């Protein structure tokens, strides 16, 4: 039996046990999974369960309605001050993921040896035992024969069970998407304010200025709601963005067009004005930062960055920059957010842009102050290693295929570098003998075809995932993971955490089909591959329920997990006490970062151009957005959000299109130095004439994703990858992935 041939009838058959007690599936999925076989033995019952959304990291609380064992509706949890009872389209579409008939349902192995995207692997269903016996044997054999670093892991450093599993392998070749997201911001924040923070107190800000940042337009409820609240309370919002239909620009009092990749120039010019006119928060800056120690160097550094200089680079009038700088410094509390991606990962100068914006916040005196960026107050939930201490892990070589070890700051973080993966694999042919990939699509990489070509060469790959995205076509074994709606966890709040808050994640329904939660998969796999690490001191296997109970107890959330489930949401409301010292070595904020200078990098944000700039061959800047009803490429197959926006298009300025002879709906070819896509043209007055915009997350190639397959095209095809040499050559201390750093030509097909 292959997944490809799975029909609705098969879906119901395989789901028989999962729907025990279920009478009727939600009507909005009618036509997808009509009526489940109803045993009818169990009495009809409706329950309301509290849980946390998992489609983005902010984890909004919700109440789920479960009728006769079927999840029918989710609504925001009003007592949760983060979501405040609101949910976005992705979160509301919960049942659309759970009851997606395209879900991975059981372990599978390939029968077709040809590994290539678009070629049917010939999946056959296998048992969990066969899957994990094979995966464990391969893992042990690969480590023994080729060494620990011959195992490539594409997965995050968390959760704790995953970290334990990767530590057992002991490879230095673990990579994730951080460089495409917030790695640069993380390096900057750690060195300037002492730590990376998600928290932005928009609701209490009086002045908000954003540079490409568009978490409002992404409908990240925690921010969209807070920015809207600030606006209602009279805050001024200024959005610099070359696309005026971006959510933040829509909501802003002033939407200012800016040349892509020039935000750094404008921010440095704002700093210039604030320093020159003495508008910074003197008490904060003199008392809590290293400003006085390096004042001469700092003033000399920003002296040349005049608003007139920035106007040349950004097209933002010098007078506007001067006015915004003055307003920002004097009409606070003021905040300039940096979350992720924009502005830290988009361009070759993303790190410096994050650096400059961080300094802007410091000068406004709002770090860890109401209305500013602040450190989260969180419950301390111990990880599995604290509860069941492992034997000593094998030592890691510290040398990886992309060369993070050559970069002092990226080596220290030990994450990221998807942007360099294809280059690293090309330079180390035959090095990687086994791949383990968890919940990543090749769409998550710049230039996916070159990454796919390299991943296809790995002799044996295991994928764990929720949905059959195209990356599984490069796998030998696929392990089906349960959704968060079928899993248990404790989620300590870190996106809006002025005081300690933890929300429960609890199974709304039992795991469907033969899926298993990630913890159960890794425990079972670990017991076969590295048994000594997955047992208690007395030799019995680790029990994840016991671990979860212990976490609950040690975090002070309740006697056990059952109590936490009953509580749902725990908030230890306490007054917000602003920090007077910061978690840097000196306890002070570093405006001037000596550690950067000592390692040969710039100690202050120094202007540099983006990587790719328009030319005769490629005259347009490429922009992307993540549409608010989708989360990158992971939600596209959900019928509910797919119906709202299931494909993409290329947005072109009306005048520009006219000049190119392109009319609304025409198929156009967008080409960069590395790739080419074709999409229908959407003409708009909301974009700069020198830019085109391709929304991200579409163009899935997996036929098993029946809703998403073949709809739209991948913006990433147009974006060049890079190498660690590139990063070192431009002295990029934070390793921006340059995920929007491309220029393109556009022509009618």
């Amino acid at each position: 039996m292959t997944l490809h041939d799975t029909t609705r009838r098969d879906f119901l058959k395989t789901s028989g046990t999962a729907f025990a007690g279920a009478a009727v599936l939600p009507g909005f999925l009618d036509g997808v999974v009509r009526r489940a076989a109803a045993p009818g033995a169990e009495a009809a019952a409706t329950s309301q369960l509290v849980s946390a959304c998992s489609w983005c990291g902010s984890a909004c609380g919700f109440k789920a309605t479960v009728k006769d064992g079927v999840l029918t509706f989710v609504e925001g949890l009003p007592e949760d001050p983060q979501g405040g009872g609101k949910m976005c389209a992705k979160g509301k579409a919960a049942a659309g993921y759970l009851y997606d008939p395209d879900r991975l349902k059981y372990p599978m192995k390939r029968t077709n040896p040809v590994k290539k995207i678009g070629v049917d692997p010939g999946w056959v269903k296998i048992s969990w035992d066969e899957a994990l016996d094979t995966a464990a044997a391969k893992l042990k054999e690969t480590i023994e024969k080729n060494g620990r670093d011959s195992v490539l892991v594409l997965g995050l450093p968390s959760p704790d069970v995953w970290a334990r599993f990767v530590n057992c392998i002991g490879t230095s070749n673990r990579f994730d998407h951080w460089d495409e997201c917030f790695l640069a911001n993380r390096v900057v924040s750690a060195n300037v304010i002492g730590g990376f923070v998600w928290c932005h107190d928009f609701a209490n800000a009086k002045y908000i200025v954003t540079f490409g940042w568009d978490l409002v337009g992404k409908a990240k409820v925690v921010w969209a709601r807070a920015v809207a609240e600030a606006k209602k309370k009279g805050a001024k919002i200024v959005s610099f963005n070359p696309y005026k239909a971006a959510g933040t620009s829509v909501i802003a009092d002033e939407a200012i067009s800016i040349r892509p990749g020039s935000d750094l120039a404008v921010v440095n010019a704002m700093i210039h004005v604030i320093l020159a006119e003495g508008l910074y928060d003197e008490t904060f800056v003199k008392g809590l930062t290293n400003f006085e120690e390096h004042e001469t160097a700092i003033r000399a550094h920003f002296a040349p960055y005049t608003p007139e200089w920035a106007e040349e680079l950004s097209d933002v009038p010098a007078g506007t920059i001067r006015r915004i700088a003055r307003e920002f410094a004097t009409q606070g509390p003021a905040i300039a957010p940096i979350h992720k991606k924009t502005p830290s990962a988009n361009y070759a100068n993303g790190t410096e842009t994050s650096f400059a914006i961080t300094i802007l916040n410091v000068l406004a005196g709002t770090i860890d102050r109401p209305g500013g960026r602040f450190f989260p107050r969180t419950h301390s939930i111990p990880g599995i290693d604290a509860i069941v201490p492992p034997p000593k892990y094998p030592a890691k070589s510290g040398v990886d295929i992309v060369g993070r070890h050559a970069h002092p700051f990226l080596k220290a973080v030990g994450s990221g570098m998807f942007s360099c993966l294809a280059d690293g694999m090309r330079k180390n042919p035959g090095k990687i003998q086994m791949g383990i990939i968890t919940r990543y699509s090749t769409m998550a990489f710049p230039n996916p075809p070159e990454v796919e070509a390299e991943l296809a060469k790995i002799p044996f790959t295991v994928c764990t995932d929720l949905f059959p995205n195209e990356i599984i076509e490069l796998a030998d074994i696929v392990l089906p993971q349960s959704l968060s709606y079928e899993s248990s966890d404790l989620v300590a709040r870190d996106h809006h955490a002025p005081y300690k808050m933890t929300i429960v994640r609890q199974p709304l329904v039992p795991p469907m089909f033969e899926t298993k939660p990630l913890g159960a998969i890794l425990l079972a796999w670990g017991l076969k591959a590295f048994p000594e690490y997955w047992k208690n001191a007395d030799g019995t296997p680790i029990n994840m329920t016991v671990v979860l109970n212990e976490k609950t107890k040690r975090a002070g959330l309740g006697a056990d997990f059952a109590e936490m489930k009953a509580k749902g949401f725990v908030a230890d409301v306490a007054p917000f006490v602003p920090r007077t010292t910061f978690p840097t070595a000196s306890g002070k904020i570093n405006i001037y970062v000596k550690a950067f200078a000592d390692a040969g990098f710039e100690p202050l944000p120094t202007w540099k151009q983006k990587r790719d700039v328009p030319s005769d061959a490629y005259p347009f800047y490429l922009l992307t957005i993540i549409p608010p009803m989708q989360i990158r490429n992971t939600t596209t197959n959900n019928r509910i959000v797919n119906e709202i926006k299931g494909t993409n298009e290329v947005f072109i300025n009306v005048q520009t299109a006219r000049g190119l002879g392109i009319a609304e709906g025409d198929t156009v070819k967008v080409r960069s130095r590395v790739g080419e896509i074709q999409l229908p043209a959407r003409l708009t007055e909301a974009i700069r004439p020198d830019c085109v915009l391709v929304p991200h997350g579409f163009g899935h190639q997996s036929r098993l994703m029946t809703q998403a397959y073949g709809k739209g095209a991948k913006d990433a095809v147009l974006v060049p990858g890079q190498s660690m040499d590139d990063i070192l050559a431009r002295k990029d201390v934070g390793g921006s992935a340059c995920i929007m750093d491309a220029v393109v030509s556009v022509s009618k097909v």
Partner: protein
Amino acid sequence: MSTYGFLVDLGLCISCSACEAACKTWNNVPTGRNVRWRRVIDQVLGVWPKVSAYGVSMACNHCADAPCVKACPSGALSVRAADGIVLLDATKCIGCRYCESVCPYGAPQYDETEKKMSKCTMCVDRIDAGRAPACVETCPTGALQFGRMADLDRLGVRQIPNFADPSYSDPSIRFVPKEG
């Protein structure tokens, strides 16, 4: 005048479509048939760089003088006497699509599978239980609001660019125009 209506604050609608997903899941509206009781219509006015962009979340406007009800030959569409909510009785609908042709907002949706119309009920079940419609309840920015028309009349205007002339059917929707 209808008792209740919607208010859309154009300066706050970010086109996120949480309203549509809420509508779909609360009301069990089928997917895959382009039956969308509520949707966000993106608007871009002006010429670059002087443009004003915003979304308008729109469903049935439960018009006080509803042309769909007048056009319906089978009595499937009716106005609830107590509060003016326009409701469709699918058992009486013959799928003639007259309502669709007279509605200036495209509110009645034709379901090809059922060969019948389908439309927004203003979440009448929730209203009767003292709750706001599902779309309003979830709106992250508060752009979409619900209330008594007497209150909404004080908060918003009847007409915005590209919106059908309200004098035609007296729709129960008001707008807070976007500044700038």
